């Protein structure tokens, strides 16, 4: 197991270098940079633009710029924002917990709704609950998160006035108010997650419930709880774990738009401003963190397989 973890972690390093390089190349392919804006926009003069480009090393080749960035990144220095002149590392350290909190809350909503719904659906395929669940999950998968977010705001914040329409309160400042502010964005994000989880779990569980060992368990007079929860669910969980790992990565990415709609000061608004204004160090830093999160989650999923299925450990 230790070897598996070590191997996975080692594989992360070249992957991160490759991904960060490709992101750098992609940004470089987009024409222009932030120098005109930084030099005063319409007030800019060619001389000033040249000065800014030199000051920010934008006049260097892409490889030199990347080398400079990578040299800092390996030491934990992701550079400074071109506009705010603040350290990207500290900005991310400030914002990442907010985004992770939101993604975690969304995942919680997904699990809370998705797992019971998947189990109930699988127990009586084509039954009333299953039909209702499939209809609901189809809707949940089809509705875009940003649209659902606005509908939720209109219903719960504008009409019913139960929850705030936007804003954020840090968890450690006031957990209850954090929950109030995070509820709608978490539901908006978690709905897709719940729907997707439910469908995956339903399919996996139906297969498992149809296997011989489960039939034997029924024949021996095992209780529903014992058979489904103890015997079937564990085996059905393996594909679900993959989905869960992928979903968490997706949820972190999806927070970008939802955070913008709900004015949550996480990675989303930070990233969006950077994209609009060509703030390369910020774009690079945020993408690196997102990629790192996705890779770590994928590694965690692999490790979890080992626990769920001993054959994976052996192989």
């Amino acid at each position, binding site marked *: 197991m230790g070897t598996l973890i070590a191997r996975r972690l080692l594989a992360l390093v070249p992957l991160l270098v490759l991904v960060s390089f490709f992101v750098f190349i992609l940004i470089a392919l987009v024409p222009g940079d932030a120098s005109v804006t930084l030099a*005063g926009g319409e007030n800019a003069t060619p001389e000033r633009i040249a000065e800014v480009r030199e000051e920010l090393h934008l006049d260097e080749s892409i490889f030199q710029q990347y080398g400079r960035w990578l040299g800092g990144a390996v030491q934990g220095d992701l550079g400074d924002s071109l506009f705010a002149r603040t350290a990207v590392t500290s900005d991310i350290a400030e914002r990442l917990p907010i985004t992770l909190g939101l993604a975690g809350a969304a995942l919680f909503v997904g699990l809370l709704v998705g797992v019971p719904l998947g189990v109930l659906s699988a127990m009586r395929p084509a039954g009333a609950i299953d039909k209702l669940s499939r209809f609901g999950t189809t809707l949940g998968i089809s509705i875009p998160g940003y649209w659902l977010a606005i509908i939720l705001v209109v*219903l719960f914040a504008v009409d019913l006035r139960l929850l705030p329409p936007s804003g954020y309160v840090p968890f450690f400042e006031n957990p209850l108010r954090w929950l109030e502010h995070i509820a709608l964005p978490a539901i908006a994000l978690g709905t897709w997650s719940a729907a997707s989880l439910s469908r995956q779990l339903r399919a996996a569980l139906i297969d498992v419930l149809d296997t011989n060992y489960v039939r034997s368990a029924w024949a021996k007079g095992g209780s529903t709880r014992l058979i489904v929860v103890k015997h079937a669910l564990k085996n059905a969980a393996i594909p679900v774990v993959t989905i869960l790992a992928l979903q968490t990565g997706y949820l972190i990415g999806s927070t970008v738009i939802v955070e913008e709609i709900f004015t949550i000061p996480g990675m989303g608004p930070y990233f969006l401003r950077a994209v609009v204004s060509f*703030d390369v160090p910020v774009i690079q830093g945020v993408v690196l963190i997102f990629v790192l999160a996705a890779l770590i989650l994928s590694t965690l999923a692999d490790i979890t397989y080992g626990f769920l299925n001993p054959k994976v450990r052996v192989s």
Partner: protein
Amino acid sequence: MKRNDTRRSVRRLVGVCTIVVLAGTSLVASSANAVSPSGKKSAIDPNGTLRFGVELNNRSPQLVAFDPATSTTTNDVWNLAFIYDTLLYPPLKTGKYEPGLARSFEVVDDQTIEVELRPNLTFHDGETLDADAASASIMRNFETVNSSWNPAFANLDSIEVLSPTTFRINLTEPGAYAFLPLLAARETMVVSPTAAAAGTLEELPIGAGPFEFGEYDTEQLLSLTKFKDYWNAKKVRIGQLDLVSSVAGAPRVAALLAPTIDVGGISVSDVGGVDGRDDLKVATKPSDGFLYTQLCKSEPPFDNLKVRQAFSHAINRDELNQAVYDGLGAPAYMAWSEGTPFYEPSIAKQQKYNPKLARKLLAEAGFEDGVSFSTMIVAGFPATETLTTVLEQQLAEVGIEITIEQSANYAQDVWVDRKTDTGTVPWIRSGVENTIMFDPGFQANLCGYDDPELNDLRTAVLDAVPGSPAQHDAWTAWMKHVADNMLVIYHLYPASVIGFHSDRVDASKFDSLYSGPSAQFLDWTAMTVKKG
């Protein structure tokens, strides 16, 4: 069979119950919606809190700059002015610089400006704002490397303090009138010397403006309280100003409806979502900026004056205004809008919609079969998207084909790389800054104009004494030259729209002085909070 019937009945019951629950929810929702506070509460609460919805981080990845020296965009003046005020106010409506912290100013000669401060000015920390403090602040800004300073700032040579309230600005070369806009901008904002020395301005900004810094919650809230010793405190008719972050569009409207804000700039397309409610009102005004197409008269097909004139005559600006701003904006024909002292009706008249004349001009220019060109717009800016789409149809009627391209980096793509023949964008600030688009050496000078006649006219505009008949004549001459040569095609003055809770605040007399197309800036002097 019976069992199946029972199941069907149960299903039907569940279905009916679901519908009833949903209908009930809707009823509760609509009844909650219908509850609208009413009652006559007209008295002003001088200590009331006004919550204004803005995007606290919309201009750059920077959150909010609180130190003028380190702010990175010209527009930061809008937030900074709450705390620091400015020496003068821009000549947007009258053509005259209005007194701010400075009681008066005098252009002594081409290289010297004398500024007299108001007496008894104090900073929020109780220190005196005198000529020494003003001089120190301006020099501090000057010595801070900041690429976003107006290039005219580089002309500053020294500042002499003549008395406790008077100081003299010496310039390295002639350009006193070109320096005047800086007296109404970030470059000459005066900060508390103690706070500047302590290096705490970013955390606790201290100026002598109408509002004292209260708190800043990152990207959530900027809370400001009335400064009772402000020189114009009687104009501050609210006790507290909370700038509450809310994203423009549907989230801003939701914040108004919730209501977590009292006032907020909204777009024309959002008016329908706010209008018609008892507790909400909408106020609109055409803004001072304008939407325009910048072209280059030395490049084909615009190297022929008749083509440029045909372009302008082919535009039905009233129809554009209706399509883009539901008629709430105003047609634009020159740099100054109707109602300002420099508006010249004859310039508007010479560009009136006349498709027949447009076709004739095109034919005379040798383009009987039509002409085509491309234009760049800023991606994600709905007003220019709609404008150019309608423009495309209008121009097609006279035989002009326009290709629209979108850019995420307009300044680079149009001003530097010249990827399209023209650019269609909003110009936020009107007045003297218009001339930049024809001034040699500026990036916004798309065509690299260095026309001696135009330069002289611009110098006359800059050099004229503000508010004098000479200034009026200079502006008329400049605008006439631009219109006669059709150097730029003006389209519309955008609509500034705000929504506000009429039961809590009165914002109906808001002025769009600084608002630009996004209706972002708050004209706090025109807003009051009602008692109750």
